[in-house]
């Protein structure tokens, strides 16, 4: 056995347990006919409302596989504008009876169930949009000027951040992929019981739900070049 082969074997021996641990972690995320179990008690309540009212049949158990003419809730502007069910709730209660295959009316849902449902839908949307926008890799195509306009305008980034203070040199501090990931979701990847997100993290999640791919490219271009 050469020295190189020996080193390679040690590396492989080290990698195998790491991979195994990774697989075990995946296996902990239990799945049933309504999709993956939610990471917190409150979100699991929302998933229960979502699944037992068969929302997942049309909108998909992770929102990305809409069928039977249903709206793609990862892109719906109504869901993007919703706050704790203030838009989703009335729509779900009224249903959409005039669609080709009508969306049922769920008048029996309680106010608490509506809030739980809406928060679960937002959670699924944030997960889906993070996956979608993380794939936007061509940041070189971003328009720095448009990014600056978004930063100071529609994105309201300037209300918390400054490119000359906390974000100064951020483009040199992080590589492009990391910068983009932190911009999309600066908080934890998955919510946890007993951990409340900060106001800033909540604001970023709202942005995450509503960014366009161009917004992300432009912002990354603007921040990345400073």
């Amino acid at each position, binding site marked *: 056995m050469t020295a190189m082969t020996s080193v390679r074997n040690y590396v492989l021996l080290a990698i195998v347990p790491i991979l195994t641990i990774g697989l075990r972690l995946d296996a902990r995320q239990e799945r*049933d*006919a*309504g999709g993956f179990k939610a990471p917190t008690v409150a979100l699991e309540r929302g998933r229960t409302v979502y*699944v*037992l*009212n*068969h*929302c*997942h*049949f049309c909108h998909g158990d992770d929102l990305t596989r809409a*069928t*039977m*003419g*249903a*709206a793609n809730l990862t892109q719906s502007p109504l869901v993007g504008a919703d706050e704790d069910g203030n838009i989703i709730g009335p729509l779900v209660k009224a*249903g959409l*009876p*005039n*669609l*080709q*295959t*009508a969306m*049922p*009316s*769920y*008048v029996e849902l309680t106010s608490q169930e509506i809030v739980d449902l809406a928060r679960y839908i937002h959670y699924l949307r944030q997960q889906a949009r993070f996956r979608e926008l993380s794939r936007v890799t061509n940041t070189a195509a971003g328009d720095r000027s448009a990014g600056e306009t978004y930063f100071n305008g529609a994105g309201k980034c300037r209300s918390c951040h400054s490119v000359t203070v906390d974000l100064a040199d951020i483009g040199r501090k992080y590589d492009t992929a990391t910068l983009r990931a932190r911009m999309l979701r600066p908080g934890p990847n998955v919510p946890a019981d007993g951990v409340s997100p900060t106001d800033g993290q909540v604001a970023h999640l709202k942005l995450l739900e509503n960014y366009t791919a161009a917004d992300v490219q432009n912002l990354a271009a603007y921040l990345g070049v400073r």
Partner: protein
Amino acid sequence: MNRRDLLKALAGAPLLFARQRPAAVTTVNGVVFGVETFSFHDLPPSGDPQLIPTIIKSLQTLGIAECEIMSGHIEPFASVMTGWWVQSRRSPDFPRLREEARQWRLTVPMTYYRDIRRRFEDAGLRIYLYNVNFNETFTDAERDRTFGAARELGAEGFSSSTALSEARRLVPFVKTHNMFVAMHNHNNLADPDQFATPASFETALAMSPLFHVTLDIGHFTAGNNDAVAFIRQHHDRIINIHVRDRKRNNGPNRPFGQGDTPIADVLRLIRNNRYSIRCYLEYEYGSFRPSLDEVQTCFDYCKRVLAS
């Protein structure tokens, strides 16, 4: 008989023997049961080689011999690609995908369908209805070919979520192929072209003696119609019902017995009057359990109802 006639007769012989097999039927107190394959929500995707075997195994597990099979379970593409849902036609990819589906339909050899039929029959099962959602994106050649496909599958006819405007286009095809189309309803009361009310069915029934009804009693109830009264009046034109439970006023699907749909009254009406209406289970309420378990629960409910 000349040589050509003899060859023709021999070529048809295998199909002749296949048709002589006793048709598989599942009855509960005289009422025939089947399954709409939409009920199996956790199937492999369209075109997956395990799709048909999984449907066959599911029917065998349930002990139900016949089914109404969705086109998306026969064809290697989801039925959303064939234009029924108007919303799906707005996708920029739709024209290309629709054309691909059309070309597949027009060129697939009929042995493709015959092979699926043989797999069901070898398992003691039967495709009684082919569920194809005819719509205005079909060409006439495609309509014609789809009737041929249904025949090769061994189906008696079609169940179809369609529209009155499309039904008019189908009139010559049902006549040419001498094969029925049973119109399936939803509960869109705003669009008069949709099947949702007694009047919409009656308009279609007047177009052709080969037009019939697949009455979805859940959707019919959600549209605030009276399923019992409709069945009493039109039982001789109803091929099958979809058994599901929904609440009135466009209410949601619910586990059997928990909605407003008069499932028990309908099943007993069919049993007591010996109507030749087949009862096809359609599972669509929410659950964390596998769909096969829920379809079994639906079937058990119907058995209890018919036992009393």
